[in-house]
């Protein structure tokens, strides 16, 4: 399910009136794989993106998870700009995951909802502004109706008001009822010229600032368990060996710790199989509260098998890299004549770099809350790829994807750690095994010792400089752990130069580039 909605020139806004007189606006995305106009069909929206209250307060929904990158401020700003809202009257709500699994292929209701690759702002740039512009056009049409002119052309908008040239004005809130009754627009409203931006391009404070400084902001680990029957906290003792497992387990002392409810064994991934769920076999301690769970875990006696990779070591990895660097390698990019550039160079600069495995270490360790019923599930967690959660839950429980509710909390940092939903997988497995709603928590030790680490490797680089110290040739040879090791069925032996390579390196004799994947 990865089809981003195609916002056609026929964008729609669906407007309804809520109890209390609030105007509720949804974007309607026309979606489909076909490029033939008219072959796309609009999907109905069931969630909210904008709520305009009669008193002119406005709530805007943010579809992307907020992980500290500021999308919960930036994305609503785009809507507010085109809608000409008074920003001080805007509050922002985090939208949950919303996917129409009835569509084929499944389709985002609000648009893409991941937070990765620094794409949230650029992904939203067109459709968020269009949504705001279309909503504005609807309100202007409503005002034109009130003023009996029917002619929207001379009307202006500012700070959540529609303004008549003769000085009359109507607030968006006052227009809610009438706007909700209008037929949908039949064409997309024009967007502002960038010169007319009043909000975009100005520094604005993060929308949750007050909640953060008062301790009210809620992260995944803050998900309350009070009032949830049988809810428990879980921590895992994970096998310290990749693809190792449990040889023996003595949980008698752990079960004696006050507050410990249960101890369960969680299977790890199949060695060699794509990593689709949790990343290690483990023993789960399920308890009344975090301290009991940690004490229970400390009382476990486990013997582990060291698995098929027991012979690996840092020294062995370095030796592998050194050997690979001595080989010709796989040429990824070869432009120009580096040998000639090197031969004619005034100066040659050479350096070798060793990059270690790096843990992401977000300030908030991985965690997830999962509650399972026979036919539905609830997941509350800090996530970067919420779109992957319904299938994950379905694979582990059989609950169909449309019955998996996913709520993204604020995340205490992401940095790519939360692009995998392995903590959710663990929480699902523990909830299933224990029969309880579970808040599963990683300690910092857990987080540093188990991760999808940024790959380690060796890089041998050399540059040829001319007499003016300009780079005229560049050679980069690397031997690195592959970031596809989590999915060994993917091709492990390719590497590429990103298209964003700085243009200062062109057009000169380009390097040979070698890469060898190291399992």
């Amino acid at each position, binding site marked *: 399910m990865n089809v981003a909605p195609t916002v056609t020139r026929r964008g729609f806004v669906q407007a309804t009136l809520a109890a209390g007189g609030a105007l509720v606006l949804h974007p309607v995305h026309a979606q489909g794989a076909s490029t033939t106009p008219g072959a796309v069909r609009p999907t109905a929206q069931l969630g909210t993106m904008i709520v305009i209250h009669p008193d002119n307060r406005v709530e805007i929904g943010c579809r992307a998870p*907020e*992980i*500290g*990158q*500021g999308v919960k401020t930036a994305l609503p700003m785009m809507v507010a700009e085109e809608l000409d809202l008074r920003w001080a009257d805007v509050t922002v709500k985090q939208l949950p995951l919303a996917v129409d699994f009835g569509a084929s292929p499944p389709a985002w209701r609000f648009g893409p909802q991941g937070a990765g690759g620094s794409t949230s702002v650029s992904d939203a740039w067109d459709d968020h502004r269009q949504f705001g512009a279309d909503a504005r056009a609807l309100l202007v049409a409503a005002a034109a109706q009130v003023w009996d002119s029917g002619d929207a052309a001379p009307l202006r908008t500012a700070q959540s008001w529609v303004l008549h040239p003769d000085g009359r004005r109507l607030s968006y809130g006052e227009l809610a009822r009438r706007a909700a009754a209008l037929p949908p627009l039949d064409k997309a409203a024009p967007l502002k010229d960038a010169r007319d931006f009043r909000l975009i391009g100005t*520094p604005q*404070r*993060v929308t*949750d*600032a*007050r909640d*953060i*400084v*008062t*301790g*009210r*902001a*809620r*992260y995944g*680990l*803050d998900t*309350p*368990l*009070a009032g949830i029957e049988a809810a428990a906290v879980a921590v895992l003792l994970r096998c310290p060996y990749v693809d190792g497992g449990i040889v023996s387990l003595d949980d008698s002392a752990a079960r004696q710790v*006050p507050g410990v409810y249960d101890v369960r064994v969680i299977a790890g991934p199949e060695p060699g199989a794509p990593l689709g769920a949790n990343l290690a076999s483990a023993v789960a301690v399920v308890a009344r*509260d*975090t*301290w009991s769970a940690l*004490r229970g875990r*400390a*009382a476990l006696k486990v013997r582990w098998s060291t698995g098929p990779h027991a012979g690996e070591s840092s020294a062995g990895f370095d030796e592998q890299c050194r050997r690979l660097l001595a080989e010709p390698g796989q040429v990824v990019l070869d432009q120009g004549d580096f040998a000639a550039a090197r031969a004619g160079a005034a100066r040659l600069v050479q350096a070798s770099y060793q990059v270690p495995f790096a843990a992401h*270490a*977000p*300030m*908030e*360790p991985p965690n997830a809350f999962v509650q399972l019923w026979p036919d539905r599930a609830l997941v509350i967690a800090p996530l970067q790829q919420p779109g992957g959660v319904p299938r994950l839950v379905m694979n582990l429980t059989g609950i169909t994807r449309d019955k998996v509710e996913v709520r993204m909390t*604020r*995340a*205490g*940092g*992401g*940095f790519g750690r939360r692009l995998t939903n392995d903590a959710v997988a663990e929480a699902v497995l523990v909830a299933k095994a224990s029969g309880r709603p579970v808040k599963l*928590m990683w*300690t*910092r*030790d857990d987080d540093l010792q188990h991760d999808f680490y940024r790959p380690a490797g060796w890089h041998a680089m050399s540059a040829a400089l001319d007499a003016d110290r300009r780079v005229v040739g560049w050679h980069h040879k690397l031997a690195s752990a592959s970031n596809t090791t989590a999915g060994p069925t993917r091709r492990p032996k390719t590497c590429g130069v990103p298209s964003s390579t700085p243009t200062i390196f062109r057009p000169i004799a380009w390097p040979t580039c070698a890469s060898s994947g190291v399992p």
Partner: protein
Amino acid sequence: MAQTPTPKTIRFKVNGEAQRWQGDGEQPLLWVLRESLGLTGSKYGCGVGQCGACTVHVDGRAVRSCLRPMATLQGAAVTTIEGLGSGEQLHPVQQAWIDEDVAQCGYCQAGQIMAAVDLLRRKPRPSQADIHSIGNLCRCGTQVRIRKAIVLAASRIAGAAK
């Protein structure tokens, strides 16, 4: 880790309210705050006193609550981030934090603020070295704005004291 055989009742105050607690005396204050009292503003970042996300005030001094056993809190007065302001009135450090737009993910910020308040009580006119002595970790990179907010708060507190 043996539990104390007869847990005595710990009487202490949190944000001005009297509390009574019984349990494992080795349990760190952080978990009692977060789970027994529902005060989730103080955060778990490491559990070994290295990051400061759990910083609270005990009897007026900054303490890393993940390492403070409940057994040591008989008669103590604890202040958490939730108790820093009064009602809707923010502490000058909190207000400076908003005015300088310090937070990114925000997870470490409560601990940073508590550490900053403690610093300003001890050193109302802190030098850059004093500010640097706050050892709280931030993974997002708010350090520069933290320093600006502390300087701003210090000047406002000094101004109000006149």
